[in-house]
């Protein structure tokens, strides 16, 4: 049993776009140790993206490489969720987002590790260890920021509130899903809730936005991200790097 191209691209693009946003922090983190940690997380995500994109190319069978898929698709062909594509220049927002994403990816990759597609299952088995580290890191910072100073508490709550509308899109039905996204919802929300409570924060109650990333419907932010990311590659068609 083989996953659909679009399903694999959804997994790959979540990782790739996250890595692209995460790498913004390198040289801009609050302390040097965090430059290292965020670079590490970004590298893990990029690594996941690369294997997943290569596999999507294999499933598609049209000879497209990881670079073809990363650099030569337009935003309408990207399949990532909105959670990962918006700019994040506030450390609290980055950690709130990473908490959501990594908790989701932990459950997802754990489930995929025993799915019917052996390649995907192998990729997921490796990735689940990486995202568990990401989740630990996000949890630690959620605690520090939520239960730190009055200012950090306020900012971390605002960050959670800002990211919350983008949570539900993770659980929307996807064509050809090997793991039903809605089946992950209880464990993901429970995982987030417990750390949020321990961090003396409130679970937000804001309504979800409409979303649509899995169908190629994005925010206006993705196009600018891709412009920067793809410009050099597209400027030299056919070149080797």
């Amino acid at each position, binding site marked *: 049993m083989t996953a659909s191209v679009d399903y694999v691209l959804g997994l790959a693009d979540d990782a790739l776009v996250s890595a692209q946003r995460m790498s913004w922090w390198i040289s801009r983190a609050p302390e040097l140790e*965090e430059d290292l940690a965020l670079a590490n997380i970004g590298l893990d995500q990029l690594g996941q993206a*690369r294997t997943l994109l290569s596999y999507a190319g294999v499933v598609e069978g049209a000879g497209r490489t990881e*670079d073809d898929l*990363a650099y030569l698709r337009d935003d309408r062909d990207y399949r990532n969720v909105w959670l990962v594509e918006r700019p994040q220049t506030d450390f609290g927002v980055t950690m709130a987002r990473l908490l959501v994403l990594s908790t989701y990816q932990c459950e997802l990759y754990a489930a995929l590790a025993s799915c019917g597609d052996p390649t995907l299952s192998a990729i997921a088995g490796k990735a689940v260890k990486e995202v568990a580290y990401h989740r630990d890191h996000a949890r630690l910072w959620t*605690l*520090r920021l939520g239960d730190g100073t009055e*200012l950090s508490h306020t900012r971390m709550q605002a960050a959670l509130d800002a990211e919350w509308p983008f949570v539900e899109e993770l659980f929307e039905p996807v064509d050809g899903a090997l793991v039903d996204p809605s089946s992950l919802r209880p464990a993901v929300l429970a995982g987030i809730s417990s750390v949020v409570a321990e961090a003396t924060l409130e679970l937000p109650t804001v309504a979800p936005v409409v979303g649509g990333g899995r169908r190629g419907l994005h925010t206006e932010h993705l196009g600018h991200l891709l412009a920067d990311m793809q*410009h050099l590659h597209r400027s*030299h068609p056919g070149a080797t790097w």
Partner: protein
Amino acid sequence: MVTGTAFEELLAEDGRVEPRDPMPEGYRRTLVRQIAQHAHSEIIGMQPEGNWISRAPSLRRKAILMAKVQDEAGHGLYLYAAAETLGVDRSDLIDQLHTGRQKYSSIFNYPTLTWADVGAIGWLVDGAAIVNQVPLCRCSYGPYARAMVRVCKEESFHQRQGFEILHTLSHGTPAQHAMAQDAVDRYWWPSLMMFGPPDDDSPNSAQSMAWGIKRFSNDDLRQRFVDMTVPQSEALGLTLPDPEIRWNEERGHYDFGTIDFSELQQVIAGNGPCNRDRIDHRVGAHEDGAWVRDAATAYEAKRADRVGAA
């Protein structure tokens, strides 16, 4: 009280000075300044290469570049830790960087204009750094020497990656070849200047040599770098922008042209292409992160309280 004699005996035996050993104040101050400047250079050096992470032309190159810039952060950490063994605080050193009281390597005040610059920095700038740093692995101060062993190993890895980037470009499309040549044209002379002023204009070198901090003169190291780099440039198929480079059979070294240090003086004076951007970037990140560092401190204090109360 520093017993000059014990310290001098140690140096004479080529032994390692360790943090709790007696040492002259001038030795300590010189080391702090040099190690801090070295650490700052790693941190500021993250920026020119970081500028291309978002635009790296393949995912493989993107991953390699991210890992490299991450290594630089790691080098900064080792080096600040080495400086701290001399009784200073990392936060003070960073403050001195931000307020311009301590320097970083001027090479990082040049911009990375094209992807090939990432290759040129790896090949030439890391190459020059290695030539400078390998002797420091035998520096008289133990913690610094040990940090340099680790740094040098990674730097030589980075240098090979830079060489490989340029090799691919040089043998790629005409536009890629031109990009590589252009980067080498721009980075060659600034790389030579990384070794500092000529020996007859380098007032502090003698003392550093006597103290076993410096092992070779600026001009010796520069010559070693030229000798190492010229054959590599031939392997790359790229030209170094100095018509006077030629093998001198008699000296057993490559001759090269006269360096125009006046530009370097401008850059050191703060008017280089990127001085202001580099410091603004660093200070901005530090200020933006203050609330995060404060939160971590407050959280640890609360946790310690809770543990104490339990």
